[in-house]
């Protein structure tokens, strides 16, 4: 038995050896590119994030340990008592509000607290609860980015699926619709952003004109990009419109991979369109959906251009994103080490979310 199996294995190994060599040979250019432009810069960023490296500086770079991460992530809290006069009565300010000691004066007087800034506060009873952060702007940007992802991923994927369903039929001239739906993707995002800021303008923009005409002046005018409550949704709508074409094509490919036999069988069983969509189309698109959702999520985390062109992070930081914050700090303010620390944290977060999504979809598939 034994000699037999050895002789059988022999040719296999001999065959595999040169193949393995080819695998390495063929993948070398791609691996080299990945290494030079992704892996090495990433490790450089990790290294830099522990230093005080500047973009331009004659000063020596020195190790600062976790200082950048501390400045980025450190969050603290405190409770403030209102100001009382000698008789123990609450002091009211000009607007009749209970007055509290000025936070900045308080923080600056204590060296241990000097780096903290106000992130948020609530007045509850006769006390003020304060959340402090060393970089409140980063935390706000992080929340904004999550909000953008949560809003844009369902919208963009849903829109893409709807468009794909619409154009997945054998009609004369359907290619025209495909081109039209795909055209925003091939338009530069900078151009799209500039054009949409015209459409979004509060007084002259097309959207407000339509809104007011259709609602007989009841709705609007909405200050799309100027109102902190509307600015992020405005960017979400535009981004979904601009990018949905790519996902539409992927869904279309997925739809065409579903066997028509299944639909015919369903017709014979008397299934309606809804139940065909729910029981044939969606399960048939499972792998496509997983891919589209994960790739859209990762792409959405990188939101930068729209913000840079349309709002510059405003109004009042409501559209600032992690990428925008990293570029502002790292390049415009030349603190490249701090920018690196932001990127490293951001990379870990995206990696975590992508792995989590993958897991979630995998476990669903097992059932």
């Amino acid at each position, binding site marked *: 038995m034994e000699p037999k199996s050895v002789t059988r294995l022999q040719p296999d190994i001999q065959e595999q050896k040169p193949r393995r060599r080819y695998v390495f040979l063929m993948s070398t250019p791609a691996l080299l590119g990945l290494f030079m432009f992704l892996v090495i810069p990433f490790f450089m960023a990790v290294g830099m994030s522990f230093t005080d490296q500047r973009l331009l500086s004659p000063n020596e770079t020195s190790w600062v340990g976790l200082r950048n991460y501390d400045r980025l992530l450190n969050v603290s809290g405190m409770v403030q008592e209102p100001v009382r006069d000698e008789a123990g009565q609450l002091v009211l300010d000009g607007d009749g509000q209970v007055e509290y000691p000025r936070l900045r004066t308080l923080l600056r007087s204590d060296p241990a607290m000097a780096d903290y800034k106000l992130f948020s506060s609530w007045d509850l009873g006769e006390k003020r609860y304060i959340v402090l952060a060393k970089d409140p702007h980063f935390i706000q940007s992080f929340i904004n980015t999550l909000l953008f992802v949560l809003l844009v991923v369902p919208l963009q994927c849903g829109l893409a699926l709807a468009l794909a369903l619409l154009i997945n039929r054998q009609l004369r001239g359907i290619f025209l619709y495909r081109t039209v739906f795909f055209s925003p993707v091939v338009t530069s995002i900078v151009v799209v952003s500039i054009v949409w800021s015209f459409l979004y303008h509060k007084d002259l923009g097309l959207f407000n004109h339509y809104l007011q005409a259709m609602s007989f002046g009841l709705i609007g005018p909405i200050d799309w990009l100027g109102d902190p409550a509307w600015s992020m949704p405005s960017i979400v709508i535009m981004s979904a419109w601009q990018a949905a074409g790519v996902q539409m094509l992927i869904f279309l490919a997925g739809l065409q991979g579903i066997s028509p036999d299944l639909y015919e069988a369903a017709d014979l069983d008397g299934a309606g369109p809804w139940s065909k969509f729910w029981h044939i189309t969606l399960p048939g698109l499972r792998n496509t959906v997983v891919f589209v959702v994960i790739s859209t999520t990762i792409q959405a985390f990188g939101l930068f251009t729209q913000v840079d062109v349309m709002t510059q992070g405003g*109004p009042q930081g409501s559209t600032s994103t992690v990428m925008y914050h990293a570029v502002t700090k790292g390049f415009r*303010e*030349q603190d490249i080490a701090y920018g690196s620390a932001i990127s490293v944290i951001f990379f870990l977060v995206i990696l975590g979310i992508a792995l989590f999504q993958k897991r979630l979809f995998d476990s669903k598939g097992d059932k």
Partner: protein
Amino acid sequence: MQIVTPTLLSVVLMTTLSTSAVHASAEPALVKLWRHETSNIAEIEVNKAAVERFNQSQQRWKIEVEMIPEGSYTETVSAAALAGDLPCVLDMDQPVVPNFAWSGYLRPLKGLVSQEVLDSLIDSAKGTYKDDVYSIGQFEVALALFSRQSILKEHGIRIGTIEQPWTKEELLRALATLKASGKYAYPLEMRTGWKGEWYSYGYAPMLQSFGADQIDRSTYRTAEGLLNGKQAVAWGEFFQSLFAEGYVDRNPSDDKAFSQQRAALDYVGSWEMANHVTSFGDDLVVMPVPDFGSGPVVGGGSWHWGITQGCANPEGAAAFLDYILQPNEIAAMSEATGMIPSTPAAAELTEHYRTGGDWRFFYDYSAAYARLRPATPAYPIISSTFETMARNIKDGADVQDSLDQAVDTIERNISDNKGYGFN
């Protein structure tokens, strides 16, 4: 070898292309140049033409121009500096020059550029850091308040003069009148949609006219009490009120409100002069910026040229700078773009800026009110912080808090950088 190669080359060329033999024997050395791609087409055209003339005028050097988009120009230059990829000659906004000089990327121009040229320039056309000149410019700009005679007359508004500029109250009264007329949704255009350096160039002079400043210029180490003091708060509240009252568009989608007659007043730099004259001719009025209490202030220092440390042919770069700073070259730039010439001799050659010329007043505004932006390597952070702060105030944030935040950011950056060489 070094002698043989060109000879061989010229022999080969002579046999094939007999006419180009002269060129081939003295191939000009390439000198790379970067410039920002401004929206002012005339400026780029004149610059291109000057490069052409320079390249034609001699055989030793050849300038090769590369355009970099304006919005991210300073970032591009910083990144290139870090990567060691700077060109030989580049143009820079004057206030970032101290930062580049401190970082060791620029060469002092003394000894490279001819002394005669350096002496001929007005002060704000020279970018200095610690008493050395690192950059020189062909032109200067000044802020002004543009309007039209017909509008002011119709609404009974006085024309501000250099002897008696508008006060804050006069400006607010004029804005209220114009707004009430119902003809202008936003009577004042202030280019709030521009990003980057404009915020600091355009609005910091207002802050200074209120009596505050971006940093304490005696030490260049602190801003506490200046950028967040009483006068600064007064500026912030005034600035915020312009948007809250609807005098200025908070989020304009273009910068054509004045030229398309949607706005009655335009607060902008003298570089728009040529465009406005084309649009409105004799109806155009140019007024000095308002006096907010401490005298009118306009920003000094425009785009300058500098030579990098890594430049392999500094003599070629210097020869080019000498060439474009000749009076006739400066005058050509001024004639085409309407910019203020940077030497008195060049000014005399221009139609508008010569003594008695119709735009001579910009010269006078500049001389009377110009204040250079803080000459410290910390300027990039000051400018970026100032922009964020002004945007937040524009969008309704608490004025005192915004100013305090800006002070904290600037001061921490200065201490992180060991004072930027100021102790």
